[in-house]
Protein backbone atom coordinates (compact mmCIF):
# COMPACT_ATOMS: atom_id res chain seq x y z
CA UNK A 1 0.00 0.00 0.00
CA UNK A 2 1.49 3.31 -1.03
CA UNK A 3 1.86 6.47 0.99
CA UNK A 4 -0.85 8.09 -1.09
CA UNK A 5 -3.37 5.69 0.39
CA UNK A 6 -2.91 7.31 3.80
CA UNK A 7 -2.27 10.95 2.99
CA UNK A 8 -4.50 13.32 1.03
CA UNK A 9 -2.96 14.54 -2.21
CA UNK A 10 -2.66 18.04 -0.77
CA UNK A 11 -0.19 16.68 1.82
CA UNK A 12 1.99 14.91 -0.71
CA UNK A 13 4.87 16.28 -2.69
CA UNK A 14 3.77 16.35 -6.32
CA UNK A 15 6.98 16.26 -8.33
CA UNK A 16 6.60 17.41 -11.90
CA UNK A 17 3.14 18.89 -11.42
CA UNK A 18 3.05 22.54 -12.44
CA UNK A 19 1.30 24.98 -14.75
CA UNK A 20 2.49 26.34 -18.06
CA UNK A 21 3.65 29.48 -16.24
CA UNK A 22 5.32 27.69 -13.31
CA UNK A 23 7.57 25.22 -15.08
CA UNK A 24 10.81 24.30 -13.23
CA UNK A 25 13.31 27.19 -13.43
CA UNK A 26 16.35 24.91 -13.66
CA UNK A 27 15.18 21.70 -15.31
CA UNK A 28 17.45 18.73 -15.91
CA UNK A 29 17.62 16.73 -19.13
CA UNK A 30 14.96 14.05 -19.08
CA UNK A 31 12.78 15.79 -16.49
CA UNK A 32 9.08 15.10 -17.01
CA UNK A 33 6.34 17.54 -16.01
CA UNK A 34 2.54 17.62 -16.12
CA UNK A 35 0.90 21.00 -16.65
CA UNK A 36 -2.42 21.15 -14.84
CA UNK A 37 -3.73 24.06 -16.95
CA UNK A 38 -2.97 22.46 -20.35
CA UNK A 39 -3.00 18.73 -19.41
CA UNK A 40 0.28 18.40 -21.30
CA UNK A 41 2.99 15.89 -20.38
CA UNK A 42 6.33 17.40 -21.42
CA UNK A 43 9.95 16.27 -21.35
CA UNK A 44 12.98 18.56 -21.06
CA UNK A 45 15.58 17.60 -23.69
CA UNK A 46 18.35 19.81 -22.36
CA UNK A 47 17.24 22.97 -24.10
CA UNK A 48 13.44 22.97 -24.44
CA UNK A 49 10.24 21.28 -23.31
CA UNK A 50 8.66 18.95 -25.85
CA UNK A 51 6.12 16.16 -25.92
CA UNK A 52 7.67 12.69 -25.92
CA UNK A 53 10.16 12.98 -28.80
CA UNK A 54 9.74 9.44 -30.13
CA UNK A 55 5.97 9.70 -30.47
CA UNK A 56 3.81 11.58 -33.00
CA UNK A 57 2.66 14.97 -31.77
CA UNK A 58 -0.50 14.94 -33.83
CA UNK A 59 -2.34 17.74 -35.54
CA UNK A 60 -0.42 20.95 -36.15
CA UNK A 61 -3.10 22.88 -37.97
CA UNK A 62 -5.82 22.67 -40.56
CA UNK A 63 -7.71 24.75 -43.10
CA UNK A 64 -11.26 24.13 -44.28
CA UNK A 65 -13.78 25.75 -46.58
CA UNK A 66 -17.51 25.25 -47.09
CA UNK A 67 -17.97 27.55 -50.08
CA UNK A 68 -17.67 26.33 -53.68
CA UNK A 69 -14.81 27.58 -55.81
CA UNK A 70 -14.18 27.78 -59.55
CA UNK A 71 -10.84 26.36 -60.64
CA UNK A 72 -9.57 27.89 -63.89
CA UNK A 73 -6.49 27.41 -66.06
CA UNK A 74 -4.67 30.00 -63.95
CA UNK A 75 -3.06 28.73 -60.75
CA UNK A 76 -4.72 30.09 -57.64
CA UNK A 77 -4.92 29.37 -53.93
CA UNK A 78 -7.66 26.98 -52.88
CA UNK A 79 -9.61 29.10 -50.44
CA UNK A 80 -8.57 28.76 -46.78
CA UNK A 81 -6.38 25.69 -47.35
CA UNK A 82 -3.27 27.16 -45.74
CA UNK A 83 -1.43 26.39 -42.50
CA UNK A 84 1.45 28.29 -40.88
CA UNK A 85 3.32 26.80 -37.94
CA UNK A 86 6.69 26.73 -36.21
CA UNK A 87 8.44 23.58 -37.43
CA UNK A 88 10.81 21.72 -35.11
CA UNK A 89 14.08 20.45 -36.57
CA UNK A 90 14.18 16.66 -36.74
CA UNK A 91 10.43 16.13 -37.03
CA UNK A 92 8.39 14.78 -39.95
CA UNK A 93 5.17 16.35 -41.16
CA UNK A 94 2.28 14.79 -43.05
CA UNK A 95 -0.04 16.80 -45.29
CA UNK A 96 -3.50 15.56 -46.18
CA UNK A 97 -5.47 17.27 -48.94
CA UNK A 98 -9.17 16.39 -49.24
CA UNK A 99 -11.35 17.87 -51.97
CA UNK A 100 -14.51 15.78 -51.57
CA UNK A 101 -16.74 16.94 -54.40
CA UNK A 102 -14.97 17.92 -57.61
CA UNK A 103 -17.37 18.61 -60.48
CA UNK A 104 -15.28 18.18 -63.62
CA UNK A 105 -15.65 18.69 -67.32
CA UNK A 106 -15.03 15.46 -69.22
CA UNK A 107 -11.44 14.82 -70.30
CA UNK A 108 -10.01 17.40 -67.97
CA UNK A 109 -7.22 17.30 -65.46
CA UNK A 110 -6.96 19.29 -62.26
CA UNK A 111 -3.42 19.92 -61.05
CA UNK A 112 -3.19 20.42 -57.29
CA UNK A 113 0.02 21.60 -55.66
CA UNK A 114 1.28 22.14 -52.15
CA UNK A 115 3.47 25.24 -52.02
CA UNK A 116 5.20 27.40 -49.49
CA UNK A 117 4.04 30.93 -48.74
CA UNK A 118 5.93 32.22 -51.80
CA UNK A 119 4.17 29.73 -54.11
CA UNK A 120 7.26 27.53 -54.53
CA UNK A 121 5.91 24.07 -55.34
CA UNK A 122 6.72 21.26 -52.89
CA UNK A 123 4.65 18.57 -54.58
CA UNK A 124 2.22 18.25 -57.47
CA UNK A 125 -0.74 15.93 -57.85
CA UNK A 126 -2.90 15.30 -60.90
CA UNK A 127 -6.55 14.28 -60.85
CA UNK A 128 -8.28 13.39 -64.09
CA UNK A 129 -11.35 11.61 -65.34
CA UNK A 130 -12.66 10.83 -68.81
CA UNK A 131 -16.22 11.32 -67.67
CA UNK A 132 -17.97 14.29 -66.12
CA UNK A 133 -18.82 12.28 -63.02
CA UNK A 134 -18.01 14.00 -59.77
CA UNK A 135 -15.08 12.63 -57.83
CA UNK A 136 -13.07 13.05 -54.66
CA UNK A 137 -9.50 14.25 -54.92
CA UNK A 138 -7.40 13.31 -51.93
CA UNK A 139 -3.74 12.73 -51.29
CA UNK A 140 -1.14 12.51 -48.56
CA UNK A 141 2.42 13.81 -48.73
CA UNK A 142 5.34 13.73 -46.29
CA UNK A 143 7.96 16.39 -45.70
CA UNK A 144 10.90 16.60 -43.29
CA UNK A 145 13.97 18.83 -42.79
CA UNK A 146 11.86 21.83 -41.84
CA UNK A 147 12.55 24.43 -39.15
CA UNK A 148 11.25 27.81 -38.04
CA UNK A 149 8.11 29.44 -39.38
CA UNK A 150 6.70 27.36 -42.23
CA UNK A 151 3.67 27.96 -44.43
CA UNK A 152 2.15 25.29 -46.62
CA UNK A 153 -0.91 25.90 -48.76
CA UNK A 154 -2.93 24.24 -51.50
CA UNK A 155 -3.13 25.70 -55.01
CA UNK A 156 -4.86 24.37 -58.11
CA UNK A 157 -5.43 24.92 -61.83
CA UNK A 158 -7.03 23.13 -64.77
CA UNK A 159 -5.27 21.94 -67.92
CA UNK A 160 -7.98 22.90 -70.40
CA UNK A 161 -11.23 24.03 -68.86
CA UNK A 162 -12.91 25.40 -65.77
CA UNK A 163 -14.37 23.17 -63.11
CA UNK A 164 -15.84 23.58 -59.68
CA UNK A 165 -14.84 22.31 -56.28
CA UNK A 166 -18.29 22.00 -54.76
CA UNK A 167 -18.33 22.62 -51.05
CA UNK A 168 -21.01 22.70 -48.43
CA UNK A 169 -21.43 21.62 -44.85
CA UNK A 170 -21.50 17.96 -45.93
CA UNK A 171 -18.52 18.22 -48.28
CA UNK A 172 -15.92 20.50 -46.75
CA UNK A 173 -12.45 20.83 -48.20
CA UNK A 174 -9.61 20.08 -45.83
CA UNK A 175 -5.88 20.68 -45.62
CA UNK A 176 -4.42 18.97 -42.56
CA UNK A 177 -0.86 19.19 -41.23
CA UNK A 178 0.24 16.57 -38.70
CA UNK A 179 3.47 15.83 -36.85
CA UNK A 180 4.01 12.08 -37.30
CA UNK A 181 7.22 11.58 -35.32
CA UNK A 182 10.99 12.05 -35.48
CA UNK A 183 12.70 11.97 -38.85
Amino acid sequence: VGLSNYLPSSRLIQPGVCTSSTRPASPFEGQVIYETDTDKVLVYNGSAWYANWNLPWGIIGKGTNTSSQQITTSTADVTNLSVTWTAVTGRQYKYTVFLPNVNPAANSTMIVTITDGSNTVKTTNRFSNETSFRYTATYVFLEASLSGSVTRKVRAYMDNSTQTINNDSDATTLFLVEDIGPS
Partner: protein
Amino acid sequence: MIYETDTDKVLVWDGSAWYPPKNTAWGILGKHELAYAFATSSPHTTFQDEGLSVSVSYGPNRLLKATLLVRPYTNGGTNFVIYRLMRGSTAVTIWGFGYPDISNSEAPHKTIVYTFAGPATAGTETFKVQIAGTPNNTQVTSYGQPTTNDGPRQLMIEDVGPA
Protein backbone atom coordinates in the same frame (compact mmCIF):
# COMPACT_ATOMS: atom_id res chain seq x y z
CA MET B 1 10.14 4.58 -17.23
CA ILE B 2 13.41 5.86 -18.63
CA TYR B 3 14.58 8.81 -20.68
CA GLU B 4 17.47 8.21 -23.09
CA THR B 5 19.57 11.35 -23.31
CA ASP B 6 21.12 10.35 -26.65
CA THR B 7 17.82 9.57 -28.44
CA ASP B 8 15.38 11.73 -26.43
CA LYS B 9 13.15 8.66 -26.18
CA VAL B 10 10.87 8.01 -23.23
CA LEU B 11 10.44 4.26 -22.85
CA VAL B 12 8.59 1.91 -20.51
CA TRP B 13 9.66 -1.63 -19.48
CA ASP B 14 6.74 -3.98 -20.17
CA GLY B 15 8.27 -6.97 -18.40
CA SER B 16 10.28 -8.18 -21.36
CA ALA B 17 11.37 -5.20 -23.44
CA TRP B 18 11.50 -1.40 -23.60
CA TYR B 19 8.74 0.23 -25.63
CA PRO B 20 7.08 3.63 -25.91
CA PRO B 21 3.90 3.86 -23.83
CA LYS B 22 1.61 1.20 -25.25
CA ASN B 23 -1.59 3.20 -24.89
CA THR B 24 -0.51 5.79 -27.46
CA ALA B 25 0.27 5.86 -31.17
CA TRP B 26 3.96 5.42 -31.90
CA GLY B 27 3.87 7.33 -35.15
CA ILE B 28 5.96 6.82 -38.21
CA LEU B 29 7.95 3.58 -38.35
CA GLY B 30 9.44 4.00 -41.80
CA LYS B 31 9.03 5.59 -45.19
CA HIS B 32 10.45 5.36 -48.70
CA GLU B 33 10.28 7.75 -51.59
CA LEU B 34 11.18 7.26 -55.27
CA ALA B 35 11.47 9.96 -57.92
CA TYR B 36 11.54 7.70 -60.96
CA ALA B 37 9.12 5.34 -62.71
CA PHE B 38 8.88 1.56 -62.75
CA ALA B 39 7.40 -0.21 -65.79
CA THR B 40 6.49 -3.89 -65.72
CA SER B 41 8.14 -6.44 -67.98
CA SER B 42 6.38 -9.44 -69.50
CA PRO B 43 4.56 -11.32 -68.13
CA HIS B 44 2.90 -8.11 -66.95
CA THR B 45 0.19 -10.04 -65.12
CA THR B 46 2.74 -11.31 -62.60
CA PHE B 47 3.37 -9.17 -59.52
CA GLN B 48 6.74 -7.41 -59.68
CA ASP B 49 8.59 -5.32 -57.10
CA GLU B 50 8.05 -1.70 -58.14
CA GLY B 51 10.79 -0.34 -55.87
CA LEU B 52 9.08 1.12 -52.82
CA SER B 53 10.51 -0.81 -49.88
CA VAL B 54 11.18 -0.03 -46.24
CA SER B 55 12.45 -2.08 -43.29
CA VAL B 56 10.25 -1.54 -40.25
CA SER B 57 10.57 -2.57 -36.60
CA TYR B 58 7.18 -2.97 -34.96
CA GLY B 59 5.97 -3.82 -31.46
CA PRO B 60 3.71 -6.70 -30.43
CA ASN B 61 -0.02 -6.46 -31.10
CA ARG B 62 0.06 -3.02 -32.69
CA LEU B 63 -2.30 -1.48 -35.22
CA LEU B 64 -0.35 -0.41 -38.30
CA LYS B 65 -1.32 1.92 -41.12
CA ALA B 66 0.14 1.90 -44.62
CA THR B 67 -0.15 4.98 -46.81
CA LEU B 68 0.79 4.76 -50.47
CA LEU B 69 0.97 7.71 -52.88
CA VAL B 70 1.33 6.48 -56.46
CA ARG B 71 0.67 7.41 -60.09
CA PRO B 72 -0.48 4.25 -61.91
CA TYR B 73 -0.77 4.23 -65.69
CA THR B 74 -1.81 1.68 -68.31
CA ASN B 75 0.73 2.68 -70.93
CA GLY B 76 0.53 -0.72 -72.65
CA GLY B 77 -3.17 -0.37 -73.48
CA THR B 78 -6.49 -0.86 -71.76
CA ASN B 79 -5.89 -2.69 -68.52
CA PHE B 80 -6.14 -2.47 -64.76
CA VAL B 81 -3.22 -1.69 -62.48
CA ILE B 82 -3.00 -3.79 -59.34
CA TYR B 83 -0.83 -2.83 -56.38
CA ARG B 84 0.05 -5.28 -53.61
CA LEU B 85 1.62 -4.44 -50.26
CA MET B 86 3.84 -7.15 -48.78
CA ARG B 87 5.06 -7.58 -45.19
CA GLY B 88 7.97 -9.91 -45.70
CA SER B 89 6.44 -12.75 -47.69
CA THR B 90 2.91 -12.03 -46.45
CA ALA B 91 0.46 -10.08 -48.58
CA VAL B 92 -1.13 -7.30 -46.54
CA THR B 93 -3.63 -5.96 -49.06
CA ILE B 94 -4.25 -5.25 -52.74
CA TRP B 95 -5.52 -2.14 -54.53
CA GLY B 96 -6.69 -1.84 -58.13
CA PHE B 97 -7.16 1.07 -60.52
CA GLY B 98 -8.78 1.14 -63.93
CA TYR B 99 -10.99 3.05 -66.36
CA PRO B 100 -12.01 5.85 -66.19
CA ASP B 101 -9.68 6.92 -63.42
CA ILE B 102 -6.38 6.32 -65.20
CA SER B 103 -7.07 6.26 -68.91
CA ASN B 104 -7.20 9.93 -69.79
CA SER B 105 -3.68 10.10 -71.25
CA GLU B 106 -2.66 11.00 -67.74
CA ALA B 107 -1.18 9.21 -64.77
CA PRO B 108 -3.26 10.79 -62.00
CA HIS B 109 -2.18 10.53 -58.39
CA LYS B 110 -3.80 8.01 -56.12
CA THR B 111 -3.46 7.81 -52.35
CA ILE B 112 -4.36 4.60 -50.59
CA VAL B 113 -4.60 4.19 -46.82
CA TYR B 114 -4.99 0.76 -45.22
CA THR B 115 -5.02 -0.10 -41.52
CA PHE B 116 -4.24 -3.60 -40.30
CA ALA B 117 -3.22 -5.48 -37.17
CA GLY B 118 0.47 -6.32 -36.92
CA PRO B 119 1.82 -9.62 -35.57
CA ALA B 120 1.44 -10.64 -31.92
CA THR B 121 5.19 -10.58 -31.44
CA ALA B 122 7.59 -7.74 -32.10
CA GLY B 123 9.78 -7.97 -35.16
CA THR B 124 11.59 -6.30 -38.01
CA GLU B 125 10.41 -6.92 -41.55
CA THR B 126 10.56 -5.31 -44.96
CA PHE B 127 7.39 -3.81 -46.36
CA LYS B 128 7.42 -3.49 -50.13
CA VAL B 129 5.06 -2.60 -52.96
CA GLN B 130 4.42 -4.79 -56.00
CA ILE B 131 2.56 -4.04 -59.21
CA ALA B 132 0.92 -6.03 -62.00
CA GLY B 133 -1.46 -5.54 -64.90
CA THR B 134 -4.70 -7.45 -65.20
CA PRO B 135 -6.42 -9.03 -67.07
CA ASN B 136 -4.33 -8.18 -70.15
CA ASN B 137 -0.65 -8.98 -70.52
CA THR B 138 0.24 -5.37 -71.33
CA GLN B 139 2.67 -3.03 -69.65
CA VAL B 140 1.65 -0.89 -66.68
CA THR B 141 3.74 1.75 -64.97
CA SER B 142 4.08 3.23 -61.49
CA TYR B 143 5.23 6.79 -62.03
CA GLY B 144 7.42 8.89 -59.76
CA GLN B 145 9.18 12.15 -60.48
CA PRO B 146 11.15 14.82 -58.60
CA THR B 147 9.21 17.32 -56.53
CA THR B 148 10.08 19.94 -59.15
CA ASN B 149 7.89 17.98 -61.55
CA ASP B 150 4.90 15.80 -60.64
CA GLY B 151 6.43 14.53 -57.44
CA PRO B 152 7.63 11.21 -56.04
CA ARG B 153 5.73 8.09 -55.08
CA GLN B 154 5.79 7.37 -51.37
CA LEU B 155 5.23 4.48 -48.98
CA MET B 156 4.77 5.16 -45.27
CA ILE B 157 4.17 2.73 -42.40
CA GLU B 158 2.77 4.17 -39.15
CA ASP B 159 1.90 2.74 -35.76
CA VAL B 160 -1.54 4.11 -34.87
CA GLY B 161 -2.04 2.48 -31.46
CA PRO B 162 -2.65 -0.83 -29.70
CA ALA B 163 -4.43 -3.50 -31.75
